[in-house]
C-alpha cells in the first residue's frame, strides 16, 4: 500500500464511523421514546388513615406470615420486616417540645425505605444486597455471610440478624416462600415476588383503611405520583442523602 492508498482508506473509514454515530444519534430519539420506562417502586403511608383503627396490626401480620418471619418473643433478637415505632424515634429531627407531648402515643409504621442511595449496599462486602433497576433494595440470602455491616450502615434500623435458627419460631410456615437460616441478615423486599406476578405488596393488600399506597414513581398518572404531588409528605432523615422511597403523608 502506498501513501495515497493509505490516506484514501483511513478517510473512508473515518467517514464510515462518523456516519454510524450520526445514524445512531438520529434514530436514538425514536428508540428512546418507544422503549418502556422502567418502574420506580415507592410507597406512601398516610398517618391519618393508619391511626384510624387502634391496635391494628393487619399489615404486620400479613407480611410476617407470607415471608416466614420468626417471632423470638425477645426484643433483642427481634426480626422485623415491617414494624411500629414511636413518632419520636422515627422522626427524631422533626420533634420539638410540643410535638413530643402531642404525638406521645402515635406509633409510626416503618419498613425498609428502599433508598435511592442505599448505604447498606455500599458496605456489603459480598454484594449480597444490591439495588435493582426498579429501585428495590434486594437481599440474596445465599450470599449473605452475616457480617452485619449493612445493619451498622442502615440509619433506619430496617435490618435484622438471625442470632438463632429461626425455623422453630415461625408460627405457621408459608410453603411458597423460603425461610432463612441462622447467621443471615434479613429485611423487607417490597414483596418483589408478588410484584413480579402483578400483585400488590402484602401489607398494602392487608390494610383495610387504605393507609398504604404503593406504586410507580416513573408513571406520572399512578396514584402515588398524584398523591405525592398534591399532599404534603415527609421522608425519614432526608438530610442523610439516602433518598428514601417510603413517604409519610399528612
Amino acid at each position: 500500500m502506498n501513501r495515497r492508498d493509505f490516506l484514501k482508506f483511513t478517510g473512508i473509514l473515518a467517514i464510515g464511523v462518523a456516519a454510524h454515530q450520526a445514524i445512531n444519534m438520529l434514530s436514538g430519539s425514536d428508540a428512546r421514546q418507544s422503549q418502556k420506562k422502567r418502574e420506580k417502586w415507592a410507597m406512601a403511608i398516610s398517618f391519618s388513615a393508619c391511626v384510624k383503627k387502634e391496635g391494628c396490626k393487619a399489615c404486620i401480620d400479613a407480611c410476617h406470615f407470607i415471608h416466614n418471619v420468626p417471632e423470638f418473643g425477645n426484643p433483642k433478637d427481634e426480626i422485623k420486616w415491617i414494624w411500629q415505632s414511636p413518632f419520636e424515634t422515627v422522626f427524631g429531627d422533626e420533634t420539638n417540645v410540643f410535638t413530643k407531648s402531642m404525638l406521645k402515643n402515635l406509633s409510626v409504621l416503618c419498613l425498609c425505605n428502599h433508598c435511592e442511595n442505599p448505604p447498606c449496599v455500599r458496605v456489603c462486602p459480598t454484594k449480597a444486597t444490591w439495588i435493582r433497576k426498579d429501585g428495590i433494595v434486594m437481599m440474596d440470602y445465599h450470599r449473605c455471610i452475616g457480617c452485619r455491616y449493612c445493619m451498622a450502615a442502615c440509619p433506619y434500623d430496617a435490618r435484622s440478624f438471625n442470632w438463632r435458627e429461626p425455623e422453630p419460631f415461625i408460627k405457621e410456615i408459608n410453603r411458597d416462600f423460603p425461610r432463612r437460616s441462622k447467621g443471615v441478615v434479613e429485611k423487607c423486599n417490597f414483596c418483589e415476588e408478588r410484584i413480579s406476578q402483578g400483585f400488590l405488596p402484602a401489607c398494602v393488600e392487608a390494610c383495610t383503611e387504605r393507609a398504604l399506597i404503593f406504586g410507580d414513581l416513573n408513571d406520572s398518572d399512578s396514584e402515588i405520583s398524584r398523591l405525592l404531588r398534591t399532599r404534603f409528605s415527609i421522608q425519614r432523615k432526608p438530610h442523610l442523602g439516602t433518598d428514601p422511597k417510603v413517604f409519610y403523608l399528612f
Partner: protein
Amino acid sequence: MIKILISLILFLMVVFLPVGYNVYTGKTAYIPVLQPPEQRGECVENVMFMRKKHSLLLEKWRDAYVRDGIKRYVSINGIYKISLTGTCLECHSNKTQFCDRCHDYLGVKPRCWSCHNIPEKVAKK
C-alpha cells in the same frame, strides 16, 4: 526375612479389612435405587442432562431468580416456574426416596433445605 513377610501380610490384612468386609457383606455391589415420580413425563430437561447437571441447573435458577428477577425457565419440554419447592418438589414429592438416596450414598450435603421448604415437613408441622 520371614518375620518381615509375616508382619507385612498382617499389616496388609488389617489395612484391607474394611474392603474385605464390604465385599463379604455385598455392600460393594450396592447402587442406590431411585424412585422417579410416576406418570409425569420427562423432567425440566432430558434425563441424562438432569442426572449429570441438575446441580448446575439449580445454581443457574438461583441466580436468575434472585439476581436477575427472571421467574420462568423455558426449555424444550415446556415453560416452568423457577422454584425449588414449587416446581422440583411438586413432582419429586418423594424427596427421601429420590434426592436423599443418591446424596446420602455419595456423601453430598446440599444446604438448600436450611431455608427452602419441603412440602411434606411443612404439612406435618
